[in-house]
Structures are given as structure tokens and as C-alpha cells.
């Protein structure tokens, strides 16, 4: 009898836990559903009385209007190119940098590291003019390269990964070195495999930031052929008149969906990499 009661208690606990989780999930998903629902309604139907979460009238042409208003297909491809290269280049730069800052001894290391991460303190707006100037001198205005280049040496990423690398015991590196491993081999076989969660986490953050970045791409690009999704969406946010909410939400869906689908399909990988308990033994 006692055992049964305990079991029931445990089950109730589970149920309660799930109820709370579902409630939180609901809070997270309602805005998305609302946006979706707004995006498929005619604009006059959205602003009647009531919440209007469930559409009674449909207008899927909103999506066509969006596609006609700006070349969203091109924007999507550009965004994917820019984000992919930003993340790849970032990882190529910051992982070795983090390794050097964490594990190598060289003159001025700490000062250099301090300068390196000091860039975290500068908001983009503060360095937009010098960055613009550099891009102009390099002849890179209105290119996708210009949207990638300023972000490659990420102070934030270097800091994050360096802290992780510092945790990895010196003895592991020593034994790899005894086996004849060079720096790159150590990185590849010791440091990176043991730091997967943090690297994945940084990549995710970086993908989301650069997917949604608006200000810098707006400043540095000129023609639709190189511009990104966020700029396209900006066309529907209006300062002087009310926004055209149905179109705005259709545009929002266009921006959110690719990323959402990407996350859903790779969910397992992300969660796994974040769950791995770094089972390090000396």
C-alpha cells in the first residue's frame, strides 16, 4: 500500500512537472501562433473586437504580396550565405585563438587577451564609422564579405571557448604531446571534442544574432542582390503610419521559419551536444 502511494505521488509529481512545462511552452509558442494566424488573414479581419487568434477569414495572398514587395528569395539565400560563413570563419579564428590564450605561454598574452575581449564592450553603433571606412578602403562596400568580416574575430566567442579550454587538464595535453601531437592535432582530438557543448552553444547564438542582424547590413549594403532578410522585413515596419500588420507578420514568418525548421531538424544534435557530461578523467 505504501509503495502504491509513493508511486502515485511520483506520478502526480511527473504530471505537475509536465503541466508546468507545457504552460511555459504555451507562453513561448503563443506569439508565434499569433503571428502565423495574423499572417494568413485579411487586414480588416485582424482588428475586429476579440483576440482573433483563430482566423475566420483567410488571405494567403499576404505571402505573395511580400514576395512581390521585395526579392525575399534572394534575401534568404544571402542570409544563409552570410550566416554560414560568419559562423565557419568565426570558429576557424576563435578556436585557435582561444587555445592560444588558454594553453600557450607567450609574451603579452594577458594584455592581448584583455584587448581582444574589450571589443565585447563596444556596441556596434560606436564602431560603425571606422568599420565602414575599412570596408570602403578594402573596396568591400555592398558585398556579402563586408557583412561577415567585422564579426569574425568574436571577442565573446573567444572568451567563452577560452574559459572552457582552461578547464581541460594540462595532463591530457601533455600526454597528447608525448604521443607526438602538434597544436592542431591537440585541438582536433583533445580540445574540440571535449568542448563541443560550448562550441555548439556559441554557434547557435551566433547564427541567431547574424540571422536577425539589421543595422550593419543596412548600412553596408546597397543593392537587393546582396541584402539579407532582416532588411526586407524592415520595409514593413513603418514609422509614420501604422504598420501593415498582416504583411509584417507574413514577412516575419518568412524570416523565422527557415531558422525554426533548421532547429527542429537538428534538435537532437543540439540537445545531445549540450547534455554531454564532460566525462574527463585525469
Amino acid at each position, binding site marked *: 500500500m505504501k509503495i502504491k502511494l509513493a508511486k502515485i505521488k511520483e506520478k502526480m509529481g511527473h504530471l505537475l512537472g509536465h503541466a508546468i512545462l507545457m504552460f511555459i511552452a504555451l507562453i513561448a509558442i503563443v506569439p508565434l501562433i499569433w503571428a502565423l494566424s495574423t499572417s494568413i488573414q485579411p*487586414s*480588416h479581419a*485582424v*482588428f*475586429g*473586437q476579440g483576440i482573433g487568434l483563430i482566423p475566420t477569414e483567410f488571405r494567403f495572398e499576404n505571402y505573395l*504580396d511580400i514576395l*512581390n*514587395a*521585395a526579392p525575399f528569395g534572394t534575401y534568404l539565400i544571402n542570409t544563409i*550565405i552570410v550566416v554560414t*560563413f560568419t559562423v*565557419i*570563419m568565426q570558429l*576557424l579564428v576563435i578556436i585557435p585563438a582561444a587555445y592560444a590564450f588558454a594553453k600557450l605561454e607567450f609574451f603579452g598574452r594577458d594584455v592581448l587577451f584583455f584587448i581582444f575581449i574589450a571589443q565585447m564592450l563596444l556596441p556596434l*553603433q560606436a564602431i*560603425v*564609422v571606422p568599420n*565602414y*571606412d575599412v570596408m*570602403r578602403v578594402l573596396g568591400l*562596400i*555592398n*558585398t*556579402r*564579405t563586408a557583412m*561577415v568580416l567585422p564579426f569574425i574575430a568574436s571577442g565573446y566567442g573567444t572568451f567563452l571557448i577560452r574559459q572552457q579550454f582552461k578547464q581541460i587538464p594540462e595532463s591530457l595535453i601533455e600526454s597528447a604531446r608525448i604521443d607526438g601531437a*602538434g*597544436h*592542431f*592535432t591537440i585541438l*582536433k582530438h583533445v580540445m574540440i571534442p571535449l568542448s563541443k557543448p560550448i562550441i555548439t552553444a556559441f554557434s547557435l547564438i551566433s547564427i541567431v544574432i547574424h540571422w536577425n542582424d*539589421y*543595422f550593419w547590413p*543596412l*548600412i553596408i549594403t*546597397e*543593392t*537587393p*542582390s*546582396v541584402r539579407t532578410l532582416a*532588411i526586407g522585413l*524592415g*520595409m*514593413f*515596419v*513603418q*514609422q*509614420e*503610419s*501604422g*504598420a*501593415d*500588420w498582416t*504583411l509584417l507578420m507574413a514577412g516575419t514568418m518568412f524570416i523565422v521559419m527557415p531558422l525554426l525548421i533548421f532547429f527542429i531538424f537538428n534538435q537532437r544534435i543540439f540537445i545531445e551536444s549540450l547534455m554531454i557530461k564532460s566525462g574527463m578523467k585525469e
Partner: protein
Amino acid sequence: MKKGIVFCLSILLLSALVFLSPVGAQEDQVLLNFYYPVGVAGPLASVVDEMVNEFNETHPNITVQPVYSGDYDDTMQRVQTGVMGGNPPDIAVVEISEAHSLLQMNATIPLTEFIEQEEGDFLEPFFDAFLANGNLYGEQWTIPFQRSTPVFYYNKDHFAEKADELLAAGLDPERAPDTWDELVAYAEVLTDREANRWGLIIPGGWNDWIFEAFAYQNNGQLINREGTEAYFTDEAVLEAAQFWYDLAHKYEVMPKEVRTWAGSPTDFAGEAASMLYNSTGALPPILNTANFEVGVAFMPQNKTYGAAVGGGDFHVFKDIPEANQAAAWEFIKFMTNPENAASWSVESGYVAVREDAYEVPVLAEHVENQPARAVARDQLEYAYPKMSAVGYQQIRQILTDILDEVMEGDMEAETAMNDAQNRIQAILDRH
């Protein structure tokens, strides 16, 4: 080790290939970069692109590259970045209050010479109120393009619904309030707490612009034309601020939490309020979304009718070749000719910048079908330049913050205006 380096290099090479971008235009052509903001709803970026295409087709020696640059603030930042970074645009449409700032940066050229070269009086057809902001130190620096004023919107169905009560209060349910006093009287009747409906909304965000209209209606002014002196503690301005405070906190006919500028047409169309101050630019979205008859009227007067104009003007930039400046002038002439001014007004909801555009059939018919379109134009008779000074964005930020506090009741009107006077005068003195 080697493998790693080879891998890195190949990635670099690959990225270089991917990023190679197309370069346009032939050599004997003048290539113009044209930055423009989009301020009102609708696919206006593609409308601008179409107009530019037409220009490019009819002017074989000039190629204009339209560059959508976000909203007004984004566009100004983009222009400033370009100017400071040694790569100014050739032409830009910039918010009218920024003229002083661009002048101080020595970024633009006056257009007076171009204007004088034209036959007849080139500026004559343009509405005077629209030219004023670009007329500084005896020169014309800008040509108006996308221009608006605030107007007064009201829900005719609500007026009809409350007709008996309005009549009982001695008010005509067939028209909009004509004076500040009437505004209060109408709003008190129309505010319906059971239906959760406010009599009136004065939105935030650009409330500095609406407030300037109230100052003009009271024969006052916020900042002088030269951008050197602020008048927030003048009786006329103080009274306007007190009136705003009272609307929300004495008569309680306006929401006590400030509604956003972009959200307020939605509030109005969604019948959360019966009357609204907003830009003419909000007319198309309101007509599209409202399920009731929309009325548009002059903003109520106190001592006089009054409005401050708004919107964006063409500027031509300084550190570009002379040929580009001449070509830019051609482009501006094209964009503001009567036919284009008319069709731009129809597509965008902006007021056409010149009187003769209203004789062009497409706009004449449009105004006939939607008489509301004529209200902003007619109100221009009482319209004045918008306040403008160096550091305008900063001034605007201070003023909107302070006005928000007045509307939310966090600050008494007089304290708020003293505060505005001190802080804004300090900015004016600095330049």
C-alpha cells in the same frame, strides 16, 4: 597540421569566390546612389524602384541606383556614416528636421543655383509650407518629396451611435470637434468605459510632432527657425502641455499609458478609441483595416488652426563630382514633376508636394473618390515648418520622453516644460 592549414586556405579561397559581387554601369555613365527611407505602409520600396527605373530608361546617360535605407533614423545614420566614411550618397531623402545637422556636417549643397537656371519660377507650384524647412540662410537646400502633416481622425459610426448624447451636450454629431474645448466635450461623451473605449488617443513616438501642432494652434512655437532658441516655458506652450495632461488625468478621456505611434492607427481601426491624432500617412492603412466610416478633419484649433509639416526631402551631397550633382538635379526634377508627384501621392498616401499635381487626372480622381485625401492639403494653409536644429534626433528624444511622462502623469506639465527648456536649450547652445 598541414591538412588543417590546407583546409583553412581552401575555405578562404572558397569564400572569396562566393563573395565576388557584380559591378554595374558603363564608364561614360553617371552613376548616382540614391538613399531613401520608407516611412509609411505599403510596398513603397517597389514604387520608388519603379519610378527610378522609368527615370533610368528615359535618361540614358544617368543610372540611379535606389538604396532602401530603413526608416528615417536609419537613413540619417546611413547618410552620416557615408559622409564621415568618405563615401557620401549622391542623393538622399532625409527627414526634414535633419537639414540643420546635415548643414553643420557640411554634407550637402544648396540647390539655389539649379533652381535659378530653370525657366520661370521653379518653386512656384510647390506648397510654401513644404519648402520652408529646406530654406535656410537664404538658400534652398532641399526639394520636398514625401510630405505629410498630422490630421484628425474620427469614427463616424461612434459619433452616430452617441448622437443623442452629443446633441444633449450641444454638440453636432455630424462633424468633428473644431476647438480644444469641443475636443474635450466630444471626448467626454465618446469615452465609454463599459465598451472599454477611449474618446481620444494622442499617440507617443512622434508626439513631439503633434505637440508642435498644439503649440502652433496656440500661437506658440517650440524652437525658432534658426535652431538657436527654445520656447518651452512660453505661456502658449505651457498651456498646450497642461491641456495634454488634463486630457489624460483631469478629463480622463485619453489612455493614461501612452500608445505607440505605429500601434495607434490599429487602436483606432480596432475601435479602442473614437478619435485619433496621426499622420496623413496613416490614412491608407486605417481605411484598409477599419470596419466603420472614417472621418478626417483639421486638427481642432485653439487660437488658430495649426500644424507642423513632416516627411522627407531630397538632398544633394557635396563631395561628389559636379556631373553627379547636375544629374542629381535632373533626377529630383523628374521625381517631383506634377505627374510623378501625383502618382506618388496616390500610391503612398502622402500629400502631393505641389499644387498643380492635384490637377493631374490620377490624383484629381483619387481626391474626388476619397475627399479625406484633401483635408491634409487644405490644412497646409495653416501649416508651418517643423522644428529643426543641429542634434535634432537628441532633441526629439528628450522631448518625446518628457511628453510621455506628462501624458502618463509622472510629471506636472510645468515641471516637464521647464525640464525640456533647460535640456533642449543646452543642446542648442552647444552648436
